[in-house]
């Protein structure tokens, strides 16, 4: 019989599986390295922030408008809500990022002022300003589908990075690196 137990002359065939595996590896590495056109989060990256002007969501913080993001410094835009559990989970990490000197602005999605106040009292308030988005207009404008999400916006108001889901310990370094990258204009 031929195929399975190859005679001595066809011993090169023994290496064929490894070669095929090498090809597989190259293929998926390529797929993993360039996730750009595969992930939703990239749809808005490189585009300017949509124009909005939100009323304050908290009495001790100003509201939020697009102009706040054109001051020449990168900022984080955090989409959150008091009713969202993962938002509570990411609060310590947001605090840490704010303490390291990166200004963070919040957009509270479909929230009530008293709930928001309780949430901020309990989990800390790292936000420089908080806009109240009762109809998800900013969220939809940003191409964001859920809470929490965090955007890195550079000094000219261009979206540079989108993080979907809560910021966990392991994500902080990546976010800070993206902020640093956003220091340089595109």
């Amino acid at each position, binding site marked *: *019989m031929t*195929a*399975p*137990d*190859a005679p*001595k002359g066809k*011993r090169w065939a*023994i*290496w064929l*599986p*490894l070669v095929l*595996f*090498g090809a*597989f*590896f190259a*293929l*998926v*590495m*390529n*797929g*993993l390295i360039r*996730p750009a*056109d*595969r*992930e939703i989060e990239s749809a808005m990256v490189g585009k300017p922030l949509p124009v909005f002007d939100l009323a304050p969501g908290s009495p001790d913080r100003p509201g939020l408008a697009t102009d706040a993001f054109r001051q020449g410094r990168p900022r984080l835009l955090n989409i959150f809500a008091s009713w969202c*559990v*993962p938002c*509570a*989970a990411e*609060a*310590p990490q947001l605090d840490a990022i704010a303490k390291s000197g990166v200004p963070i602005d919040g957009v509270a999605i479909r929230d009530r002022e008293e709930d928001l106040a309780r949430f901020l009292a*309990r*989990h800390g308030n790292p936000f420089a300003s908080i806009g109240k988005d009762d109809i998800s207009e900013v969220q939809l404008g940003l191409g964001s589908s859920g809470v929490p999400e965090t955007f890195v916006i550079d000094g000219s108001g261009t979206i540079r990075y989108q993080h979907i889901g809560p910021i966990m310990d392991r994500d902080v370094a990546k976010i800070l690196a993206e902020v640093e990258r956003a220091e340089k204009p595109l």
Partner: protein
Amino acid sequence: MIAEAGLALLWFAAALAVLQLFTSLMTLRGGDGSGEMGGIVRPAAIMQGPLVALSFAMLMWLFIRTDLSVLLVAANSHSAKPFIFKVAGTWGNHEGSMLLWVTVMALSGSFLALVERRLPERTMIATLAAQAFVSLGFYAFLLFSSNPFERLLTPVAEGNGLNPLLQDIGLAFHPPTLYVGYVGLSVAFSFAVGALITREVGPAFARAMRPWVLGSWIFLTIGITAGSYWAYYELGWGGWWFWDPVENASLMPWLAATALLHSASVLASRDALRTWTIMLGVVAFSMSMVGTFLVRSGILTSVHAFAVDPERGTFILALLTIYIGGALALFGARASTVSEGKRFSIVSREAGLVVNNVALTAILGIVLLGTLYPLLTEAFDTKVSVGPPYFNPVGAIFAFPMFVALAIGPLLRWRSDRFGRIGKRLILPAVVTVIVLGGALMFAPDIHILPLLGLGMAIGLGIASLVPLFGRNLLRTPLPTYGMVLGHFGLAVALFGMASESAFSTEKLVAANVGDRVDVGPWSIELTSMEPVAGPNWTALEATMTARYEDGSPVMLHPQSRTFTQPQQTTSESALSTRWNGQLYAVVGEEGADGRWQLRLWWKPFVPLVWLGGLLIALGGVLALIGRVAGDVRRGLQRRRIAMRRESKPLAAATTGPAE
């Protein structure tokens, strides 16, 4: 404390795996495997099972208590969830499912170390070294990148819920079943690597590996069957196989395991196909790893992707590269030094099994290529999606010849045979196939070629699969033979269901008012009412339909459009009515602007046979496994009895030669 205890247990088990790897490698370097170090290998492997199982129990406990100070519980559970889904929630997420994987793996390792005594000790030590090496990768994955016991700094008030699509009893069994299958293949992989290291590839190796392959193959078969049925009624699309990457990911290890099963039986009984079997042992586990990687990395778009994270994907890819790349390199270096197996003629049972192996491997290649093709074209900036128009015909090119071989092969003798000897026994299936083909063409002239061939083949194969039993003493036929017959018959049954479903299904999509009547195939269905209903964590609009088959008595159907509260998501709960000759499938959709309801109705003749066939295949595997294990146990007892007799009569021992 529960979470911390679980984590500590996991670290302890990982440390034992390091010990297992270290001592086994030292033993392999040192020589015969009977040294002091060698004595540690087995106990180290045995201890890991209970430790990890206990750790898994800790996580389950956390889920049952809904301990919201644990991140995983907070993110995936909810205090109002029904009890069974709290339990199932333990593994209905990435971290938990990896812990489940490691648990099954550690338990298999324990079992392997505890009972397997037939192989030369050196090969066994090498096998356990490979097993420890594989486990260590998974321990590292859990402990460094997906710790299931991570705490929240401040506990949350309420959990996030579990994906509603997963709140189904199917979930409670589907992933664990597949994992047992995958892990069984990891043991086969370790056997293959162990045998490569010591170059001891032969019938004993195949016999030791076979129960593991058989066992994992049974679980994979059940897992795929259940997964297919689950997708069928849960997704509400009326299809039972979509050639989706996640489905392919579960099919590919099954194909490889099926091939391995057959080639291992050649190796076990005839000592042929040595290198080929080793390679399949590596490939089968590779496919489970590749499948897991494709599912988890989110590198491909899928309807079933529930736990996607590119970073974890990278970790799995790293593991995969180390294991598979390493094993294949070892294979390349060593395989040529494995002495060639026995030869056989072109007409023989071995040859039939080679056809089976080549066809299964080709189908595996086709599925793998089709699954990866979108990635390949994406590398050149074109987006494509590959679906049934590719998989069905291209797969069939190899599947149909395989079915023919399947009808003939079991009748052939080992080593060498003549077609003339068995020709007579194939007349009946061949004639019936032709009659069915003709009949189908007569009654349904528009039938497509694949369903047509499928119908004919299915009936012919169904009969041919029973032919090996003709003229045998049924009471003295060994259990594995029954297993083979049942497995092959199950394949024919499933094939018939598939062919019938694709040839004869009828579908209706209508907008109906309450009181309207719709006809689908032989059914007539009336939408009787639409009412809101509520469950523990969902509300739904429930339709009541009165369905009649021809003029039979009415059957009530209650499909729902269900909205879960936590997290918010709408799902369609289909309603099914099963008869002996098919299934009626009803889905209710949105309310239109004019107050009419979207109804989707299918009549699918004989579709339940698809899953019935799958279960029969698995049952065949169970029979074969029981037969094999019982045989092994019996032989083991005999050996022991002979050895004891030799001890009591030393003179007799001297004349029959040294004991093993």
